[in-house]
């Protein structure tokens, strides 16, 4: 018997027993629909993450961090991630661009509204990378010295502005209340020579030979100098301000370790803010003390250390070689590519877990197929005898029942895929409505890739064929003589 013959007889038999066939196929439909809906959720999330990584060009990006001091011997010098090092990293083979994560606190004024926010100094070349490509309105700044600024949707939220276009062309006054090292220094020397003279007079020179007195004197003077320095530093109120034009609004990006400041200013324009020395925050003071750049008045910016440098890599760059080189220089690295591999691995297990749940449902449905096929043998024993009398061999009869169970599986899987897809559409619509109401970005939670369709069809077919194997074997072994005598 040819496959079309088998198919014709099988479909005829299923059509004849409409209700039973419908119920059996329904079991497969529900199981496959559950299987598809669950795996579709995994596939949708994987697709979303992949799209985000690709849209932001994260797979060709490497983050460089200063080495941690913990665990290192005191003699080991931790290299500074400063401007010179940024330039060196930019020169590595395969590196398109290197730029520091240079963030500082500013006051931003638009019309009558003033908010405190973080500003990020960014070279114009970096602004053209994919990370900064998701513009909601306007354009990126035109050069490193442009008196322009790009704000993010996070900045808009701070101002309660909903229309990004309304900000384009608006004047933005940026000001920094930079603490002045000079004022700190001046406080130490407060009172001038008279004060110094007065303090010298208080020294008991005859006791200087006494080491305890000498140390006590040194501690007292150092303590007093530090007190006056910090007092002078924290109470300085030097303000640096500039007026910029908002040229673009960028979508806020938060992807693991990727963070884009609410306000982005061209590198050269931002230099006078970021190089102004530490801000009012005492933490900045200690950071500058640690980096050793606190008193470098000639070019404070050159000695600044950054918490992070981003490397934009060429698409075909030897990622491992670059990572090894950077780590040899004494820095830590983080790659979104490695994170992406870990995410992909997670999704494999996630999909596997969901798939197993779906398969359990499918195995349950297969019991319905076995039941249907066994009942079919009992009802069609005489027919089997007739077919054998006409020349059907055991293989023909076995194939006939296998094709019948396979048809159940194929129809069930096909309808199940459609049904599962409809379920995902319904859930997706509800989820997106909730997302919109909560002001979140609309995310497509589900995806139905071709591989999922093929796997669902294959599983439906394979499980139904396995379910039909026993009844088919039993049907093939029916004795034709007894079958022809049966009622």
């Amino acid at each position, binding site marked *: 018997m040819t496959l079309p013959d088998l198919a014709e007889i099988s479909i005829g038999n299923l059509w004849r027993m409409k209700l039973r066939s419908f119920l059996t196929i329904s079991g497969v439909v529900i199981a496959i629909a559950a299987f598809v809906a669950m795996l579709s959720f995994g596939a949708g999330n994987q697709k979303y993450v992949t799209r985000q990584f690709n849209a932001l060009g994260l797979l060709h990006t490497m983050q460089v961090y200063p080495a941690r001091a913990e665990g290192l011997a005191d003699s080991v010098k931790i290299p500074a991630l400063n401007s010179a090092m940024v330039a060196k990293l930019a020169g590595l083979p395969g590196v398109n661009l290197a730029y520091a994560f240079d963030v500082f606190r500013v006051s931003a004024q638009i019309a009558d509204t003033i908010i405190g926010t973080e500003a990020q100094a960014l070279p114009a070349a970096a602004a053209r990378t994919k990370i900064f490509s998701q513009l909601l309105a306007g354009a990126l700044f035109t050069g490193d010295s442009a008196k322009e600024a790009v704000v993010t949707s996070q900045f808009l939220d701070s101002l309660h502005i909903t229309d990004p276009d309304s900000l384009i062309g608006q004047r933005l006054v940026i000001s920094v209340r930079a603490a002045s090292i000079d004022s700190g220094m001046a406080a130490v020397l407060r009172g001038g020579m008279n004060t110094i003279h007065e303090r010298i007079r208080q020294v008991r020179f005859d006791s200087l030979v006494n080491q305890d007195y000498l140390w006590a004197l040194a501690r007292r003077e150092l303590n007093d100098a530090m007190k006056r320095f910090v007092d002078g530093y924290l109470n300085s109120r030097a303000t640096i301000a500039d007026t910029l034009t908002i040229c673009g609004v960028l979508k806020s990006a938060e992807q693991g370790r990727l963070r884009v400041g609410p306000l982005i200013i061209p590198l050269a324009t931002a230099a006078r803010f970021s190089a102004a020395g530490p801000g009012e925050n005492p933490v900045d003071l200690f950071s500058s003390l640690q980096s050793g750049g606190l008193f470098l008045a000639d070019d404070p910016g050159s000695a600044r250390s950054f918490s992070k440098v981003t490397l934009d890599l060429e698409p075909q760059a030897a990622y491992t070689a670059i990572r090894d080189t950077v780590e040899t220089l004494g820095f830590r690295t983080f790659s979104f590519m490695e994170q992406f591999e870990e995410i992909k691995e997670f999704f494999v297990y996630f999909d596997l877990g969901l798939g197993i749940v779906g398969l359990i449902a499918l195995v349950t449905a297969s019991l319905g197929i076995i039941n249907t096929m066994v009942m079919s043998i009992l009802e069609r024993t005489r027919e089997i005898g007739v*077919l054998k009398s006409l020349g059907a061999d*055991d293989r023909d009869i076995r194939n006939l029942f296998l094709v019948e169970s396979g048809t159940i599986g194929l129809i069930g899987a096909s309808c199940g895929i459609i049904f599962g897809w409809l379920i995902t559409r319904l859930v997706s619509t509800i989820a997106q409505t909730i997302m919109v109401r909560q002001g979140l970005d609309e995310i497509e939670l589900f995806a139905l890739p071709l591989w999922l369709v093929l796997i669902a069809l294959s599983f439906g077919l394979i499980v139904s064929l396995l379910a039909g194997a026993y009844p088919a074997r039993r049907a093939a072994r029916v004795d034709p*003589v007894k079958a022809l005598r049966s009622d």
Partner: protein
Amino acid sequence: MDDVNLSIPRGEFLGIVGASGSGKSTLLNLLAGLDTPTSGTINIDGSALSALNRRQLSTHRARCVGMVFQSFNLISHRTALQNVELALYFNDTPLGERTGRATDILQRLGLGDRLNHRPADLSGGEQQRVALARALVKRPEILMADEPTGNLDEMNTRHIAAMLAELNREGLTVLMATHDTALARECARRVIRMSYGRLVNEEDVRATGGVTS
């Protein structure tokens, strides 16, 4: 069955008579390859059926043997035409020829207007003619009819008997098991009698074939 020695020449019309349980159907099942003897041999055209495996026996039934049963054994959900076509599924008849051949044989047996009727819509005589068409459509060498008129009235009995005789005259070897000795003597050239599985009597009924309808 026991101690049955029988030789059937090509073109023979053999009537097998006997009471119920005498072994008539068993003899036909053995000759058709539906059943296998525990001992002894069956040779058809010089080939021993016992030497054939199950698959070869199926091929033997598909190509050489046409069978007709007392209870017709038509498949209830298939039309007359589809029932007849079914016999061509197993002997490699090309798909394009099946409907034509099935239609021809049904028309020849007077069922040209009943092609698309299901068995339940046909009379007993018509059902048996469909069964006969199903047996003949594959152009077998041997037609085995097991009580073909057992469920038919007098008129249909004579009609079927006449058809079998006609087919025999055209050269087909016909083996007909029946409990109706008169019918067997009327149709067949030779009649054997079975009793308790043994061949107890053999009678050459007529020198020449022929039957009155």
